[in-house]
């Protein structure tokens, strides 16, 4: 199983989204979410949104190992 995390404004769109799922890439997660959560999937397709696996920024086609933590990160606004 893959653990899913949504930060910043993406969290508002991810209400009711499962916290885990089976998937082989972050891109596949986005595709799978599109069926039940089209607004969230649209947000995830914004080019500024980054994806991390186990707290490292990766490409959307990164192969996911069992037990990975995938986080979706909108543009940061700290400081």
């Amino acid at each position, binding site marked *: 199983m893959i653990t899913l995390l949504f*930060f910043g404004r993406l969290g508002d769109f991810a209400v009711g989204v499962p916290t885990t799922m089976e998937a082989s890439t972050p891109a596949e997660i986005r595709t799978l979410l599109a069926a039940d959560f089209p607004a969230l999937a649209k947000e995830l397709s914004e080019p500024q949104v980054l994806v*991390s696996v186990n707290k490292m920024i990766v490409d959307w086609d990164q192969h996911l190992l069992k037990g990975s933590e995938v986080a979706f990160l909108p543009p940061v606004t700290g*400081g």
Partner: protein
Amino acid sequence: MHTIRIQTDDFDLAQEYQLLRELSSTVGAVVTFTGLVRDFEGEGSIESLSLEHYPGMTESLLEEIVGQAHKRWSLIGTTVIHRVGELLPTDQIVFVGVASQHRADAFEAAQFLMDYLKSKATFWKKVSQDGEQQWIESKDSDAAAANRWDTDSV
């Protein structure tokens, strides 16, 4: 020597300065930056700010950024503190302190750390204004400020 802290509590500039100043008798310059919640964000006054971050990832990003600063400049000590949670106008949000022998190193490293904190570290701000909550949009100017360190031949 470097310190990185992410905390809900406030911080004390005087105490952080004292720690940097006393690191070594070769410290000739200490630069501090403190970021505060401003009363005006766009139009109208804000009621509060809520800061979220990605625990674990934020710390490792900050470690990396601070490590880069120590490689790039001649530094004696650096301190980075970022608050998370609920903040009110005029509250302190972020502290960067740098101690070095010469002033140019301290100034440049402090700016570098702030630019990266603004554009790369995994923090997100939500503002409460006129009874409504809204995520703050990232600024192109912050990305530009961070990018200049990639090309500068400092």
